[in-house]
């Protein structure tokens, strides 16, 4: 080993980490025989420690861990025998539920159930998958997560502030939930799903407005999608955003 080679190796040496690792160990040994390299090595120990320490000083936002946990879309659990048993039990329960559903009178997958489900979701609370005021970023996030992202917004809705989005599921079909804020005390929720997800519903571009407790919902079809716009308040309020 010569001096240029030792110098080249030492440039990527991490003091205390690579000391006994090839080829750093050989370069360090060589440096002991060269005054200039020896001095650089001693100084590098201090420089490396100082820079490492300063990177460790980067303050982590207090609420970050909570935000990560709140926004995860699907809780991930590692596989285990116990978990597999739980999955089996859950599958049986689902099968029983489906059997009940198949033999129960009346459709459960109609637009009224869908609207009621969405309104209940809004009223009872939810987690947003992404919090952002950037409309383009929201659309890109949804596209990346296989949720409807080719939605169009009415002019009044497009003038509000986007807050974020969530990806939901309705009978196995991905549903996009978009959140907007118009006034400090008024949020809007727009849900978009493939029209095929809700059978027995004739395409209707004219919004139909229903009231569910304190909330109103406008529902219409456009471009192969079913839209539901929900807002707290009476029909006149939701109509003002169409």
């Amino acid at each position: 080993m010569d001096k240029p080679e030792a110098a080249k190796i030492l440039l990527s040496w991490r003091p205390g980490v690579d000391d006994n690792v090839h080829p750093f160990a050989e370069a360090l040994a060589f440096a002991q025989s060269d005054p200039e390299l020896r001095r650089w090595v001693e100084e590098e120990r201090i420089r490396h420690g100082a820079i490492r320490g300063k990177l460790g000083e980067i303050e982590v936002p207090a609420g970050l861990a909570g935000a990560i946990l709140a926004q995860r879309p699907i809780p991930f659990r590692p596989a285990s025998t116990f978990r597999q048993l739980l999955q089996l039990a859950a599958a049986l329960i689902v099968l029983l539920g489906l059997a009940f559903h198949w033999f129960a009178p009346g459709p459960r997958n109609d637009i009224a159930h869908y609207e009621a489900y969405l309104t209940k979701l809004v009223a009872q609370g939810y987690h947003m998958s992404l919090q952002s005021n950037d409309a383009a970023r929201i659309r890109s996030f949804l596209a990346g997560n296989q949720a409807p992202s080719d939605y169009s917004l009415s002019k009044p809705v497009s003038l509000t502030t986007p807050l974020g989005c969530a990806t939901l599921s309705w009978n196995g079909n991905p549903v996009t939930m978009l959140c907007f804020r118009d006034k400090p005390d008024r949020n809007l929720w727009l849900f978009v799903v493939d029209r095929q997800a809700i059978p027995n519903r004739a395409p209707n571009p004219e919004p139909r407005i229903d009231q569910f407790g304190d909330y109103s919902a406008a529902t219409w079809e456009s471009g192969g999608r079913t839209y539901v716009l929900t807002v707290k308040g009476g029909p006149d309020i939701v109509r003002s955003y169409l």
Partner: protein
Amino acid sequence: MTSGPLFENLVELHYRELYRFAYSLVRNEADASDLTQQTFFIWASKGHQLRDTAQAKSWLFTTLHREFLQRHRRASRFSHHEISTAEHELPQVMPDTIQKMDASLLLDFLARLDPIYRAPLVLHYMEETPYKEIAAILRLPLGTVQSRISRGKQILYRMLSSPGDQASTEVSDG
């Protein structure tokens, strides 16, 4: 499949160092938080595809770095200047210059490095894992990683030793 930590444990174990890595790359709290959250979001969506959860940390760093590069490419096209310094020349900067330097200023200098040098150099300082693992995180050959660290360090030390003379090493729009 190896049994691994729960999602909550994984967050608790790694979110701080992931955030610090992200912050060193983007130099912005909102963007660093967003990158960290997006990394765990991707884990929650796809992490179960990882057969060996002992590799979770490396997977998370790889994912964060990939997200950073994707956003950076979208945000701006860039080119980097090859430095003229020979690779074997040891850069000089007095240790006490760095010791006395405010962490924020050091991060400013790091942020001026071309991203191809910035990520390897930050991991060089932050991580104590073997270089083979850092190469895996960056998806680069081992030799390229070490070469970029060397060059990145030469540029950084040159900036630190003469803060007013850094124009030739900064990122420029391509």
